[in-house]
């Protein structure tokens, strides 16, 4: 599977890159905890270093690497997992949807799965175009309350997990897009509708596979969002991280770009029809 992923990107002229796993300052996000490594941290995503490469002039890059997130363990979560990230300059997140359609169909084809995958009894056709649905539409259709109501009552995440996600990507994969602006940490807000962020999540058979942004390139705005996330973390008594200053400096030179993170273990779960993430790794933390 990873061999076909590499081939897919290399054939399109992407540069495979490798960035440090151990970094001095992870991106402050309200609900992602990093694992400390000495005075530094293990990366929660290669996002910051990869964007510095975009700023340095590399237009199409991808990476397959390990990421670490403290306390995340469940049927679909490992505290150490494998991420695929890719970035393109000069475009927005819509191009990444095309990439997803091409990439996953290609990987499935290379594995001899044909034009559809079956995951835990659900058959999902991979022929493009995949469904695109906004967060607003998804809440109206499946949740029985609006996005505003869910945000107002502070239960957006609960409704998303319990009511919305189980319906997403059942016949065709679905891109859940246009997140409320406050939920798009590193995403650009839409020029025509500043209430929504240009962010999407890809779902297949109810399983979340990838998160994508049209990247925010306004360094001052990014600093404000990091500071807000840091405040949220302090309020929740979560460990504080230093601000990634060199990333913020580089961001002001970064061209308009789009980037996406896709969970490789979860893609393996889908393609190999496995119910848990445990089944697609050689060792779980509990077995070490």
């Amino acid at each position: 599977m990873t061999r076909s992923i590499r081939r897919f990107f290399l054939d399109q002229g992407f540069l495979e890159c490798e960035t440090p796993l151990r970094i001095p300052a992870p991106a402050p996000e309200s609900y992602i905890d990093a694992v400390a490594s000495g005075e530094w941290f293990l990366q929660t995503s290669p996002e910051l270093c990869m964007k510095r490469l975009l700023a340095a002039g590399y237009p199409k890059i991808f990476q397959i690497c390990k990421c670490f997130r403290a306390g995340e363990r469940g049927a679909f979560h490992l505290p150490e997992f494998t991420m695929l990230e890719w970035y393109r300059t000069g475009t927005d997140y819509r191009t990444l949807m095309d990439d997803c359609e091409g990439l996953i169909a290609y990987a499935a084809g290379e594995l001899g799965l044909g034009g559809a995958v079956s995951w835990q009894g659900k058959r999902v056709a991979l022929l493009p175009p995949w469904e695109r649905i906004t967060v607003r539409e998804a809440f109206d259709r499946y949740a029985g309350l609006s996005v505003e109501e869910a945000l107002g009552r502070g239960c957006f995440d609960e409704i998303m997990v319990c009511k919305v996600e189980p319906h997403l990507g059942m016949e065709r994969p679905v891109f859940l897009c246009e997140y409320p602006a406050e939920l798009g940490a590193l995403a650009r807000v839409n020029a025509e509708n500043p209430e929504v962020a240009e962010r999407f999540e890809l779902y297949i058979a109810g399983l979340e596979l990838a998160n994508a942004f049209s990247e925010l390139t306004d360094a001052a705005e990014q600093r404000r969002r990091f500071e807000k996330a840091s405040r949220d973390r302090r309020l929740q008594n979560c460990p504080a991280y230093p601000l990634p200053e060199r990333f913020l400096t580089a961001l002001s030179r970064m061209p308009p770009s789009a980037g996406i993170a896709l969970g490789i273990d979860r893609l393996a779960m889908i393609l190999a029809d496995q119910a848990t993430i445990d089944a697609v790794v050689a060792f779980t933390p509990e077995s070490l």
Partner: protein
Amino acid sequence: MYTASDLRKGLRIKIDNDPYIVTEFNFVKPGKGQALYRCKLKNMMNGNQFERTFRSVDIFEAADMQEKKMQYLYQEEGKYCFMDNQNYEQVFLSADQVGEAQNFLLDNIEVEILFFEDRPLGISLPNFIDVVVTKADPWAKGDSVSGNTKPVTVQTGYQLQVPPFIEEGEKIRIDTRSGEYLTRVKG
């Protein structure tokens, strides 16, 4: 005290003064959102089940359970009376609380009763009990229709299938977990 991240299958917690056991547990986290702990919980008093989603900030009290050895005394109007042989205190359990075990309650049998605080929840029997067969039809040799077992009734009123050579008045050993015949007991 437990936090939501301590939750796992089999854990017993106290909610609104009732004991609950976690029967299913899953950690979930929507993209960029907060960690959520989805549980199926079963009320250990009345058996009601429901689903609940907790956040990592939620905290729980442990359900304080203890098992006591008690002796079965008698049954009256659907209430089963047990006595603590240490202090002679008596408790009554309903037929629901006794459950399947009522098939195997021999007079004066010693059982373990699970308590939540002062409230009895249920009983566990010894794994094996010896009982007298009170009713058994004679075995008609060559009766191939009934196969190689026949039904009998034992002193507690429980009915089960046994090998055809078991006769009325004999003692047999039963596995109380499966309710099945194990062996004939001599003497």
